[in-house]
């Protein structure tokens, strides 16, 4: 049984999809019970798998007994299993958080069932993006994840057909570029397996192939990574239930960033090649462009629009680490990735408790929140503190490592950018605290149910736990996920960063 865990953990959510969809036509409670069983089974499988990868380092599974590179390979690393655990937690929190929403809509039992089915389809395909080591399978998972995300948007709110279409259509157009990149690499190397591609590219040292495939891969993710920027998805934020927004901008976007990291660093070994000046310029431009969304976020009068901008702006921290590429910076990026998963979901969940139905949410609705609902207010402070980088939150450690990475590389431009962004966020944090604690006579906020409070508190607690136990997280999960050259072994057996490592 244990040897099949890597594939069981992957197919569990996918296999449950038709059952959940079918049960939605029978009874709501049967459906909810089944969902709970699947989530619980996932935790059991996940715990067993985590024990295995922590003792063995890596866990491999070849689909159909076909060994890689011929067959499709599932590879579980301590970090991907750990990341999958947080993704599973956010999925479960979303389901639990959304229960009152569906109970209020009593006549929508089919919609609730379909929502749960799409939720598991999304979870399964996102896990596939983390675990599969084959470009073609990754393309299938990406398309499935986009379809599930668009489905969730439409089922969550029927007005969202247009935004659902845009996300799926442009996401698919981007995925086609990933396919083009895969075919281009296959035509050049004869393989689609990620690890085999790394070896072939290292042997051939064909910089043109690598740069072309790298650029195509980056453009493939442009649309999903801008989700849910109000500039592109104009009505999405106000029309979609907050828990759907939180789920998508948390797990879909962040897992795609991790996939991009794997493709660029562990497959194409892009930093190991000489990059033309215009690509370097593009990379330098990308980070201020992402950080500019913080400025836009703080200029919004609507809290949800503000969170949507923050969700995209935070990606800048991840790309700073990838761009710097040293051990400290990559550690910081992966810590930030875990941190952002929780922050984005948590902030959207809080926004959801402030409005009963989808619509605008002026910032003034936050006034007095800390006094009227102390636990929600406290959770909001934890999320905001982690966003700024105030200890002992996980965000503080992530940013600390990023700054350390910039100092080690003497990259003053990125150092100034990160420091300026942190200061800007600190200003917003102070403004937020004043707002939620000082305005006593402000409009009363609506009371929220236990079902919505528990997930928010769990996510806030997660940020504190990750921050307090960051050294354990780094030692046991993040360090094994770094390139071999950065691990505590004498001879690096995987080429990485070329001359910079030497």
């Amino acid at each position, binding site marked *: 049984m244990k040897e099949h865990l890597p594939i069981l953990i992957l197919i569990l959510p996918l296999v449950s999809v038709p059952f959940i969809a079918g049960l939605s036509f029978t009874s709501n409670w049967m459906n909810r019970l089944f969902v709970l069983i699947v989530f619980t089974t996932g935790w059991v499988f996940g715990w067993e798998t985590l024990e295995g990868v922590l003792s063995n380092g890596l866990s491999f599974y070849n689909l159909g007994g076909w060994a890689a590179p011929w067959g499709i390979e599932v590879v579980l690393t301590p970090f991907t299993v750990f990341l999958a655990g947080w993704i599973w937690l956010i999925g479960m929190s979303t389901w639990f958080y959304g229960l009152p929403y569906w109970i209020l809509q009593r006549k929508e039992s089919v919609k609730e069932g379909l929502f749960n089915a799409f939720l598991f389809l999304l979870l399964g395909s996102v896990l596939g993006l983390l675990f599969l080591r084959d470009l073609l399978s990754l393309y299938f998972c990406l398309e499935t994840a986009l379809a599930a995300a668009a489905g969730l948007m439409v089922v969550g709110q029927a007005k969202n057909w247009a935004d659902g279409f845009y996300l799926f*259509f442009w996401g698919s157009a981007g995925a086609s570029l990933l396919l083009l990149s895969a075919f281009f690499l296959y035509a050049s190397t004869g393989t689609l397996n990620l690890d085999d591609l790394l070896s072939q590219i290292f042997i051939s040292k064909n910089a043109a192939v690598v740069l072309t495939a790298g650029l195509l891969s980056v453009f493939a993710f442009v649309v999903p990574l801008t989700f849910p920027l109000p500039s592109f998805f104009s009505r999405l934020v106000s029309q979609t239930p907050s828990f759907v927004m939180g789920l998508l901008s948390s797990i879909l976007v962040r897992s795609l960033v991790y996939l991009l990291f794997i493709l660029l660093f562990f497959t194409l070994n892009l930093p190991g090649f000489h990059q033309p000046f215009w690509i370097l310029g593009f990379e330098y431009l990308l980070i201020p462009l992402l950080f500019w969304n913080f400025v836009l976020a703080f200029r919004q009068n609507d809290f949800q629009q503000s969170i949507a901008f923050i969700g995209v702006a935070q990606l800048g921290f991840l790309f700073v680490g990838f761009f710097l590429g040293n051990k400290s910076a990559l550690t910081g990026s992966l810590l930030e990735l875990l941190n952002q998963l929780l922050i984005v979901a948590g902030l959207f969940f809080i926004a959801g408790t402030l409005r009963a139905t989808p619509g605008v949410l002026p910032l003034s609705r936050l006034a007095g929140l800390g006094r009227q609902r102390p636990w929600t207010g406290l959770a909001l402070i934890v999320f905001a503190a982690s966003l700024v980088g105030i200890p002992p939150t996980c965000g503080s450690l992530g940013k600390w490592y990023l700054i350390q990475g910039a100092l080690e590389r003497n990259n003053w431009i990125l150092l100034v950018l990160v420091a300026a962004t942190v200061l800007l966020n600190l200003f917003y944090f102070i403004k937020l605290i004043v707002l939620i604690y000082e305005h006593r006579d402000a409009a009363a906020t609506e009371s929220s149910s236990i079902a919505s409070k528990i997930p928010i508190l769990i996510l806030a607690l997660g940020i504190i736990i990750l921050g307090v136990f960051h050294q354990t997280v780094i030692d046991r999960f993040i360090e094994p996920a770094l390139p071999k050259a950065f691990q505590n072994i004498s001879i690096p057996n995987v080429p990485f960063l070329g001359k910079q490592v030497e």
Partner: protein
Amino acid sequence: MILNTLLIIRISILLLGLTAFYRLFASTHLVKKIAAWAVFQASIVLLWLSASSHYHGQENPIPRVVAFLIGVFSMGILGIMLIFALGVLRRRGSWEIENKDAKRST
């Protein structure tokens, strides 16, 4: 002569794909956009088949199998896109919505 024929085929596919890629952005009609994506996707698969179907003079079956898989999968994507487009049509009463949306977002 064979080389020239293959070259002409590849250039034709490339032009078809680039035109479809342009139409992805230029079309404001949802069905035309979807058709453009289908042509773009087909051109990628055809280009790859033309580049990988033979390896050192021997036939390579893998690209054909993969092309078949992608073809079937793409039909499914096409179907989902059309479902979304029909949803938009039912809500808005028009296939032409992009320009309106662009104006609203600004």
